[in-house]
């Protein structure tokens, strides 16, 4: 029997050596951005940034035009002011819709692949477990940041443009608040994404993943609320993961306007350690599950 050196036409392009996770990332984004539910949730998430956009426009025009009919009203309402706290409130109030969107996007990332036996296909390609995991995680994080950090940056730019006295060097004055917004967005989005992807790698279906994450959040927050109530000590609220994230946000933006708790008494480092520990735990679960899948 003759033996041929080439039985098929060899691949003439270049193999991706680095950034292979990009393919997984693109595939994931392609999957969810076509969904009607995602589009509706995303539009709902854009309502607040839109309102903030109008707030910035009206505030800046009122501040620069003394004859503006609404100027006295706008100046007198403190929560209409455009300052650092606006960006803190923007990201803080985005949290519920971001969580909902991340649950929608992230709950199926790993479990759907397992259910549809796509792991065999993924890992038969030159993709390692870390490419797969990084692609999946980054797609969920990207989705979260697109509703928190990205609108914040757009609003900063809007503020800069609508201020008549702006010079181009004035742009640099936004750097600190931009850094704070990025930090708070990451503190909000990254642990949530890690927790959701970890749950998705453990549980068999999207529905079970969603309800498990929600159950743990509710149980965790209820327990923290009751403990702080019975012990008459607001610090116990830190046990609640969502509250810990809010506290971190307040620390990052240096805001202390909480009705029920005094954030000044709380150690930012301890809260960071708590969030970091939970995030690392979730990351370890993800790595363990995906590596197990890669080994077959």
């Amino acid at each position, binding site marked *: 029997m003759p033996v041929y050196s080439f039985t098929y036409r060899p691949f003439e392009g270049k193999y991706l050596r680095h950034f292979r996770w990009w393919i997984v990332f693109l595939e994931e984004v392609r*999957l*969810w951005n076509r*969904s009607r*539910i995602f589009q509706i949730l995303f539009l709902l998430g854009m309502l607040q940034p839109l309102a903030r956009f109008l707030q910035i426009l009206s505030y800046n025009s009122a501040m620069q035009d003394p004859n503006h009919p609404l100027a006295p009203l706008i100046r007198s309402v403190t*929560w209409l002011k455009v300052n650092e706290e606006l960006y803190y409130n923007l990201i803080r109030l985005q949290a519920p819709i971001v969580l*909902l969107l991340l*649950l*929608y996007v992230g709950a*199926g990332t790993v479990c*759907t692949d397992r*259910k*549809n*036996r*796509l792991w065999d296909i993924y890992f038969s390609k030159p993709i390692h477990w870390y490419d797969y995991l990084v692609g999946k995680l980054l797609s969920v994080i990207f989705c979260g940041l697109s509703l928190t950090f990205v609108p914040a940056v757009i609003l900063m730019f809007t503020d800069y443009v609508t201020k008549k006295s702006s010079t181009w060097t004035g742009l640099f004055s936004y750097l600190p608040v931009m850094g704070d917004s990025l930090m708070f967005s990451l503190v909000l989005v990254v642990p949530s994404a890690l927790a959701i992807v970890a749950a998705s790698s*453990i*549980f*068999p*279906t*999207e*529905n*079970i993943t*969603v*309800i*498990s994450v*929600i*159950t743990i959040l*509710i*149980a965790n927050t*209820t*327990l923290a609320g*009751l*403990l702080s109530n*019975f*012990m*008459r000590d607001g610090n116990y609220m830190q046990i609640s993961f969502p509250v810990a994230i809010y506290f971190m946000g307040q620390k990052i933006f240096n805001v202390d306007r909480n*009705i029920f708790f005094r954030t000044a008494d709380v150690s930012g480092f301890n809260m960071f350690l708590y969030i970091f520990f939970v995030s690392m735990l979730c990351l370890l679960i993800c790595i363990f599950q995906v590596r197990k899948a890669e080994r077959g």
Partner: protein
Amino acid sequence: MAILRIKNIGSLFLDIKTSFLHSLTITLRRDRFLLMAVICVLPVVIPIFVALFSRAMFRESGLEIFIRLSEQVYVHTLTPLLALFIGLIGIREEVDSLTIVYLLTRPVSKFAWIIGRFLAYMLISTFLLGVGLFSTFFACVVLGSIYVDFIGISMLLQYLGVGIMGLMGYGAISLMLGCATNYPIIIGVILFFGWEKIANVIPGIADFWTIQKYLDSMFPALASQRYNRAVMTVIGSFQKELFFVSPQRAFITLIVLTIIFLVLAIWFVLWREFTKDRVVGTR
């Protein structure tokens, strides 16, 4: 009408028994059962923690802690969670994994299938709720002002009864959502932890469209009078005016609601086509 087309009473009971036992054997070995078991007994740590570490001069008594844990944790939080976690998922995992096609091609009445599933959910959830409530009760006894006597035990049983009524109401709605929609968890969470909470604080009679309203009416009388619901906003605060419903009426209402939602669940199973093939890789 297909819903009324039953073989005979004997085989109907056999079908219900099969569905019940099947659901029981599947659910008891799931990770989610363990997770819910842990969450149900978790509140026990609160009275223990208070007893060991509270340095407050006038700390809450065991009775107060038990009442608040029973109402806020077990009835208001854990019953809807159990309904979503055990009841809804019990139906939904067959639909999601597409194994429902094996059941739909068996000569089993859909009525029996749903009722069997519902009974299995009720048994498992009542067991978890009961274990949680009993352990919390005994933990609270340590703190005093509540005793293992006739009054204490009857109060415990009353809370357990209210919890079971909550499991029935929330469970029937969850089953209906599981049969009717493709995103039942999201809708369930919005309904049970969004709408229910909002409707019970905003003025007006919106709370009549919630399960919580009727559950609150069945709490021990003194406990329900402690409620002083208010909403604080940046504009001001307003107080919820409470329209009380008698426990008897609440009981009947919950039974009727349970029946209505179970009938709707059965109707959806009869009406929907669960076997539409999905393309691999899509969500």
